[in-house]
């Protein structure tokens, strides 16, 4: 905490004018308002919004306490604060993009399975057997599916 106060008080090396800090802070606030609005209008689900709020708060913190950036650069062993900032942001974006690829893959698999289930259901309608196969086949199927999961 003391380090934080010190960082806020002293700003020797970081070349951020008060104008850029204000602009950054305003952008950060607008960004978070935008996220809120997207959630409010059901365009964004809460579970995918957390990361964006963290990003917004990070932006705000950077604007309010430029010393934080310097601490960050020191921790990374980078002399140039700007390089440290860009590296961190780049890494975060990379992680985020990967996260989206994972989510996308999962959803693609779910969509495929959904399409397959629907196609199979339609065959059953065509064949005119609403109850599908007999109970013996069903028990056998359940046993096999459990065998797979274990």
């Amino acid at each position, binding site marked *: 905490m003391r380090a934080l106060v010190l960082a806020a008080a002293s700003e020797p090396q970081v070349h951020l004018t008060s104008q850029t800090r204000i602009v950054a802070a305003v952008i950060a606030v607008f960004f978070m308002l935008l996220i809120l609005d997207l959630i409010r209008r059901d365009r964004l689900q809460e579970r995918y919004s957390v990361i964006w709020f963290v990003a917004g708060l990070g932006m705000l913190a950077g604007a309010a306490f430029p010393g934080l950036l310097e601490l960050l650069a020191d921790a990374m062993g980078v002399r140039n604060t700007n390089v440290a900032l860009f590296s961190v942001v780049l890494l975060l974006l990379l992680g985020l993009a990967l996260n989206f690829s994972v989510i996308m893959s999962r959803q*693609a698999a779910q969509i*495929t399975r959904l*399409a*397959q289930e*629907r*196609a*199979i259901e*339609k*065959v059953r309608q*065509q*064949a005119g057997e609403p109850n*599908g*196969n*007999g109970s*013996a*086949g069903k028990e*056998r*199927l359940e046993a*096999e*599916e459990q*065998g*797979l999961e*274990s």
Partner: protein
Amino acid sequence: MRTLVFIPAWNEQASVASVIADVRKRLPEADVLVVDDGSTDATAERAREAGALVASLPFNQGLGAALQTGYLYALRNGYDACAHLDADGQHPPEEVVRLLAEVEADRADLVIGSRYHSGAVAASGDYKPTFSRRIGISVFRFFLTLATRQRFTDTTSGMRAANRRVMSLFSQHYSPDFAEIESLQLAVRQGLRVEELPVRMLERAGGSSFLTPVRSAFFIFKGLVVLLVGQFRPRQAEAKQ
């Protein structure tokens, strides 16, 4: 012994009916299912007219998803054995009968119809792969053999027969991108008995192969990545622990 023959089809209205008729003639006791992979032409109608069951996917999902639909249907409906062949008329149904015989005699869990197996060379004067296809074939043959320590000659064959062990495996895990090759690797890794049988295949009835040299190169690269990743998938024995 209940048998299902399924045919993945994507815009194959010209050939699907004759393939179905052929299958029904050679395998009168088997049920025939056409997995219509989001066709925009009259494939589904032609298939229904020809007396097949039709599972229509609402949009095109790729060969892997279509094949998986067939395996899932066979598993759900209690079939003892299933086989699939292409809808373009390349695969003579009398060869499918031979594949199914192997499965029904319980000599293998999964049987692949191979165009290039030594026994097939004499008979398969009718099938000639293009140059870029030949390169891809030998690359995959080499790496799949390396990965599975089992000799495969026709890694991309779409003519196969399988029993219930394979159905339950493939209905759960089946790569949508690299259906043929990865499924072989998967089956061998899970300890299933995979066997190749030399078969005769015909030149495709209509349409041309989608492979251009650039696409071939990309296809091969993708396939190698898939094979490499597949080597790190857990085996069933390990997963159980």
